[in-house]
């Protein structure tokens, strides 16, 4: 087993040899790697790159990471538009200022997450909010139009101005543009036509028919910074994850707390325990067999976004969020300012790994009971996956 690590400056593997885990650079030196993951069906490795100058590119390796080549590229089709706030304009007339959102051409700003369904089916979440899917093993990708044209986004903007109103807002991860992003894609392993996506900032949406129709799945969500906390839209999921063996168990680390669903995201229940620091954070991982067992790496909400009091810990529940254990053995308990991004915590069997923006990679081989720092000086870590 190895750990695939996407960083601000390349792709790394962390592998165990002679009893210890060691990192090595395997590709994309100097290039931002937002996500790197292995296709469980084909074995190919996929990386979502963000070149500083040259745009977002999909990269693939079919030889275990020895060589990487550009894959089929994701492009927004001509005519794809989205609603966004107008740029501030001190010279705008009073009438112009009251017009509300404006239409912007969609161009690919970021490849954020990659997920796999049935063999040959690959899904990519992007900013500005498009879900792209391939049914030919990544030889070509198409924008999912029913989601792109969803009523919550203002309707079919290919055809015209739509409703003029969008419930999808922006994410700072878009590097300057005010655009929404899909960072979580969960495919039900038992019913591949059922899929959840999470959008920053809008909420969670579900399809049960392979992406032909979508509906919001935000019942029970509470967003404590909205005028109406139980609003249908406007939620800020940071990441969602599903239990492979019990897909009705879905977890959500949200800006406004930790949420758990035992009915496939039809209803959510807040399971934060702020007195233990279990509330704010980015990633969440779910046990592959037991849907009530999950791990988080909490941070201090939300103006700081740092390890709480300089002490890094992982929180684990085994009872669906009723109680949480603080796992600190082997993790720094003073002067630690690690922040763990949404894709930078992963689990496989009893192994867990997470990486931080300070370039530290921590690994546990006992369900999180104890941890070892296996790399200290990596670039800022964006993603951690086993593969």
């Amino acid at each position, binding site marked *: 087993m190895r750990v695939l690590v996407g960083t601000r400056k390349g792709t790394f593997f962390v592998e165990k040899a002679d009893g210890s885990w060691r990192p090595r650079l395997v590709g994309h030196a100097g290039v931002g790697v937002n996500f790197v993951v292995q296709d469980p069906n084909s074995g190919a490795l996929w990386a979502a790159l963000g070149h500083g100058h*040259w*745009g977002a*590119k999909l990269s693939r390796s079919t030889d275990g990471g020895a060589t990487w080549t*550009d894959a089929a*590229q994701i492009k*927004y089709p*001509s005519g794809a538009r989205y609603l966004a706030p107008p740029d501030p304009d001190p010279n705008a007339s009073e009438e112009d200022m009251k017009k509300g959102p404006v239409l912007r051409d969609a*161009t690919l700003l970021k490849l954020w997450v990659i997920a796999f369904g049935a063999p040959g089916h690959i899904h990519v979440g992007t900013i500005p909010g498009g879900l792209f899917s391939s049914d030919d093993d990544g030889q070509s990708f198409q924008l999912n139009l029913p989601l792109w044209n969803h009523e919550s986004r203002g309707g079919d903007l290919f055809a015209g101005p739509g409703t003029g109103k969008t419930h999808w807002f922006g994410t700072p991860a878009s590097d300057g543009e005010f655009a929404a992003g899909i960072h979580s894609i969960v495919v039900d392993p038992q019913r591949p036509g059922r899929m959840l996506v999470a959008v920053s900032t809008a909420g969670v949406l579900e399809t049960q028919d392979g992406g032909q129709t979508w509906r919001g799945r935000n019942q029970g969500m509470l967003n404590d910074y909205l005028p109406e906390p139980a609003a249908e839209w406007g939620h800020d999921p940071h990441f969602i994850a599903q239990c492979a063996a019990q897909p009705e168990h879905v977890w959500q680390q949200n800006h406004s707390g930790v949420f758990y669903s035992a009915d496939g995201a039809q209803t959510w229940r807040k399971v934060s325990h702020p007195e233990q620091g279990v509330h704010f954070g980015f990633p969440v991982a779910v046990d592959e067999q037991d849907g009530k067992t999950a791990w988080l790496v909490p941070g201090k909400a939300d103006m700081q976004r740092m390890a709480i009091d300089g002490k890094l810990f992982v929180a684990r529940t085994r009872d669906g969020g009723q109680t949480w254990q603080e796992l600190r053995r082997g993790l720094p308990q003073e002067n630690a300012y690690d922040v763990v991004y949404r894709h930078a915590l992963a689990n496989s069997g009893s192994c867990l790994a997470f990486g931080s923006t300070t370039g530290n990679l921590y690994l546990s081989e006992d369900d999180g009971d104890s941890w070892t720092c296996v790399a200290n000086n990596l670039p800022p870590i964006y993603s951690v996956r086993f593969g």
Partner: protein
Amino acid sequence: MAGVRPRHFPALPLARGEALGPFDGIGHSSVMATVEITKHLWEFLPTLRGKTLTVEASSVAEVVREVERIAPGFTYYICDERGCLRTHVNIFVGQERILDRTRLSDPVEPDSRVLIMQALSGG
């Protein structure tokens, strides 16, 4: 700053070396242009490594089209889906930075030297 054409820019490392081209069957009214592409792109488009290209083209858009034939995928490195030049990419024709970043319609004169590089955006 539309209309301002800065004349002096620091040199960036550019691809110089083996000449490649010209290519047959390009537009009759075209002229020959020499294309130098930043070394940064050699890593991702190995076909370009070490080469100075000579192409027939009468506009920057045609230059890009010809380079795409030599190095498939090149265009999406320097332009977005709409064909607009990416924010942090610059093209010079001779000493002049191109003005039309949307359609790349700037003309290419006989024996022009076209430079394609990452913008000096800092950071």
